[in-house]
């Protein structure tokens, strides 16, 4: 068991998900989504979605170029929730329906 905490203390109950879903790039989040089962993603979604607006508000207190590490981790968790919401709310399967073998790689994005 790890004692290192990743998230602001107000979001401590999400620590188990932070280990899996605090991923800074879309490519990592996409790969994690496709490697996850729907029950795994539902569990993360159900735990975090009710607190999403609160998490956005928390991160939004900081300027984009000076976000403390724990809030940055929370922001990456928000990004992962957006990714997982595509499967949970819209597609009801890990990959987009009808996407067959198509691949589209995000090669550039603003940070964070």
């Amino acid at each position, binding site marked *: 068991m790890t004692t290192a905490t990743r998230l602001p203390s107000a979001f401590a109950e999400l620590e188990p998900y932070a280990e899996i879903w605090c991923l800074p790039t879309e490519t990592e989040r996409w790969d994690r989504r496709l490697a996850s089962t729907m029950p795994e993603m539902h569990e993360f979604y159900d735990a975090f979605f009710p607190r999403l607006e609160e998490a956005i508000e928390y991160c939004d207190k*900081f300027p*984009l170029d000076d976000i403390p590490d724990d809030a940055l981790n929370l922001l990456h968790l928000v990004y992962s929730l957006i990714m997982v919401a595509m499967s949970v709310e819209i*597609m009801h399967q890990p990959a*987009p329906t*009808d996407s*067959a073998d*198509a691949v589209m790689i995000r090669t550039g994005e603003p940070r964070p």
Partner: protein
Amino acid sequence: MATKWPKPAEGSWTEHYPDLGTGPIPFRDSISEEFYALEREAIFKRAWLNVSRVDETPEAGSYITRQIEAADASLLLVQDHDGRIRAFHNLCRRRGHALVPPDFRATELRSTGDEFECRHCGWRYSLDGRLISLPDADRFADLDTADYGLVEVHCDVWAGFVFVNVDREPRQSLRDFLGPMVTALDGYPFDKLTERYDWVAHNNSNWKIFADAFQEYYHVPSLHTQQVPPEVRDPNAGFTCGHFQLDGPHRLVSTAGTRRWLLAPEYMYPIERATHSGLVGPWRTPDIGELPMHGLNPGNIEPWGITNFQIFPNLEILIYGGWYLLYRYWPTSHNTHRYEAFTYFHPARTVRERIEHEVAAVVLKEFALQDAGMLGGTQAALEYDVIDDYPLNDQEILVRHLHKMAVEWVEDYQRDRAPAGA
């Protein structure tokens, strides 16, 4: 959404553009290796091609590389000391080595300082392409450095979009090539929308087949049923575009836009409601000044949603008012192409705005993958070549136009090559 949009006076879009014809089309231009070989010469080695935006080479010495397989070109673009962007073949004049390492799409800015130096032979070139020094110059017989500058390619900029033309003497200036319909966007503040998300996809379809997916919208309710939640899906929903327009080889289509956040909440997914962003982008975008609406919405569609400019041959700019998408289709063979997609937003001022951009970027990929997933199969099916008469309806005139333009450019090329008097 049963809105009926006024048709042109002639009664239909097809009749408004009678040159397009009304017959079925074969799509053979999209499955033939021979036709693709001609397209490379007739289109990709003659047309102006957009390869970047000015902000990718922001200062003197900033450079990028670009591969244009269909034009047999590996290019180097650099801003020179006069602020001009120049394009060269990325080729050292001494032995043909790549002058800088080709990098498919560097997102980090690269700078060469005041000159380029070939890593292989040490020949050095100024930012305007002159050979300025070489080791052991006295070992060459009668070598005049003035004869050994980099090989330059025509390069010009419109509205911050950098275009190249590999033809020895382009038949038209960039502005004449773009024509009045496209250049009516002159005043659009593209320079204020610099927050970029980039994607690349290698698709198993002819470049025109993917472009076709964005030239009509009738496929949207059937392929992209998930664009609205199931409770509000209308199985009989059609989609009618309000305005089509052609100008030379270029096209545009405008659609009305529902402000989704003004609809009942069930028209949106929970993630959209929570983040105030989604399929049609951020609900609110910063004020970027007055927009050139005559150019942006020439059909006066109200409420206006998107206009999609399809700039021949392989560029699309889809403008949503406060942000835009850009697609490029680079053929790599008769049945494959590299698809590049970008979203451009006003730079996020807050974390909340950055999250809105992320949502729009994530949703875009979901639906683009549906299009891409469909088209590999379409290409394979077209290649069975059992059907050569596909009907196109009045909402698909842009599909008709793209294929017609490709064929016409090839025919013009063949005519130019035919012996005089033949």
